């Protein structure tokens, strides 16, 4: 028997949150830890049954059932087709509903501002690149707001209520850059406030490289990895170390001058056009000696960093992310794999503006996932 006192068996049931049958996202309610746990698990593993969710979380199948039902009603989780014909009883796999939630991300770089809208499983549904005049990021506030509105407007009207928020991935030096250059007193905080005021959605801010690593952990090749070393090849070459899902940022001076800025300088020195390397172009034209020299230097810099770090920290995977054409990351990863027998170097899966996608992952992690 053993019922706790007082005996609540015959009291009316407690009408929990689910009893509110409003459709759409539960905007203001605080999502329970168990709901976040289930969503995080489904982000990591597509197609789990409720029993498997229970086994992984320690929840009973019935508790998982209640949570899943509420997430289904909100449209965040959807059922797949029953899988029959395997050993054992059939299962109905559960997955995150790609159309359950959306987010907008803005990635700031020296030469470009990227705006992306992603769905709940990280697919880029909209992408736009704005030209950023060097060190003058905030003069284009109006353009940026318009681009965010374009991104939101790319969704059918009925889906716009499912946008969870806006993320900004910004370099650390952004405030200093803006202050010294346009002298307008615009700051990141002001920009954040302006977007929140105009768009009426929560705005989340994170360092750009950390956001890119976070996006790759959430949606990319790093999904199953606890530990890895992350490189971002942008204007400069920067890195983050991820240990047990925590993203560690070294001293900011460890951002190496071996990025695309170095290639640009080399091209300029040879009077070759260099605009292409800041574009979203999937392929670059033949760039000759300047390119091959730069690629070799970049490869050596990567290998030197890995050699230095591997003496102190154990990691088995390196993930290389860049907005530059895929073959560059492929080539650099191949170099690393040749050099280190025990390390697996993988080009990132997120290739359309990794910073913007990482930024867009911020509202999801804040509102739906366990941290």
């Amino acid at each position, binding site marked *: 028997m053993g019922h706790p006192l007082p005996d609540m068996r015959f009291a009316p*049931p407690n009408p929990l949150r689910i009893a509110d049958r409003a459709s759409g996202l539960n905007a203001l309610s605080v999502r329970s830890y168990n709901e976040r746990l289930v969503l995080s698990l489904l982000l990591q593993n597509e197609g789990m049954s409720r029993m498997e969710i229970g086994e992984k979380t320690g929840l009973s199948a019935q508790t998982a059932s209640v949570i899943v039902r509420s997430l289904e009603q909100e449209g965040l989780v959807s059922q797949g087709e029953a899988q029959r014909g395997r050993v054992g009883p059939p*299962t109905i796999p559960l997955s995150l509903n790609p159309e359950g939630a959306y987010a907008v991300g803005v990635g700031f770089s020296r030469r470009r501002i990227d705006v992306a809208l992603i769905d709940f499983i990280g697919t880029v549904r909209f992408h736009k690149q704005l030209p950023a005049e060097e060190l003058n990021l905030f003069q284009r506030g109006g353009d940026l707001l318009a681009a965010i509105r374009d991104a939101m407007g790319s969704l059918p009207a009925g889906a716009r209520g499912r946008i969870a928020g806006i993320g900004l991935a910004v370099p650390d030096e952004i405030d200093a850059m803006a202050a010294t250059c346009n002298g307008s007193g615009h700051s990141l905080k002001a920009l954040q406030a302006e977007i929140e005021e105009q768009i009426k959605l929560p705005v989340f801010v994170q360092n750009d490289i950390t956001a890119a690593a976070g996006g790759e952990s959430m949606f990319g090749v790093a999904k199953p990895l606890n530990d890895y070393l992350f490189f971002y090849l942008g204007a400069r070459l920067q890195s983050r170390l991820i240990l047990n899902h925590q993203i560690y940022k070294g001293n900011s001076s460890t951002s190496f001058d071996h990025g695309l800025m170095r290639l640009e300088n080399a091209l300029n020195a040879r009077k070759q056009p260099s605009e292409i390397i800041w574009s979203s172009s999937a392929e670059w034209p033949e760039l000759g000696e300047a390119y091959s020299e730069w690629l070799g230097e970049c490869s050596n810099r990567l290998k030197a960093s890995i050699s230095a770090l591997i003496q102190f920290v154990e990691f088995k995977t390196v993930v290389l992310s860049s907005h530059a054409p895929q073959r560059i990351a492929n080539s650099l990863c191949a170099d690393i794999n040749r050099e280190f027998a025990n390390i697996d170097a993988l080009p990132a899966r997120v290739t359309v503006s990794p910073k913007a996608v990482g930024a867009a992952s911020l509202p999801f992690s804040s509102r739906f996932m366990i941290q």
Partner: protein
Amino acid sequence: MRSVLCYGDSNTHGQIPGKGPLERYGPDERWPGVLRAQLGAGWYVIEEGLSGRTTVHDDPIEGAHKNGRTYLRPCLQSHATLDLVIIMLGTNDLKIRFNKPPSEVAMGIGCLVYDIKELAPGPGGTTPEIMIVAPPPMQDDVKEWKSIFAGAPEKSRLLALEFEVLADSLELHFFDAGSVVSCSEADGFHIDAEAHRLLGTALARAVDAIGWSRST
């Protein structure tokens, strides 16, 4: 092999709409039979449907044996070990003689759930999985049952929400039969053969969706 007990009233018994309690769909036609076919060889499906069964009330007219609570304990013990108990009751509680609001019908279901938990007829003396099925809402026209079921059709449309609130609160599996079938026009509160087929198929899917570990 896993066992599931289907605990219900005339709509689990398979009573044909507009006919008497002795006229019943065949074993393969009524929803527990459909469930058996759909779930396949890994499951043993036990039918316990009684016409007129209530959640927790002795029926002063039809008899004390219509009380779903007093029969549940011997029934659970007779059929243990059970992996899953499906309960689809509530329609008979809406007879005017019981004078109960939908919320209290849900509380009656709650009593049955507590009894299952107490008796723990699951594997190794555990609580089996429990699935509450809200019966499909009655039609407005219940023919010659009009006086017996006075006011019931309206209440019947509220049962699904009350049952789901209960299922959320007690952490139970839940299925709304009204999401896949309607009651027959013939008498307004029984389901026909096609509805049995649809309901059994949908419930098999809901049972699958629980997900079952590979052991056993």
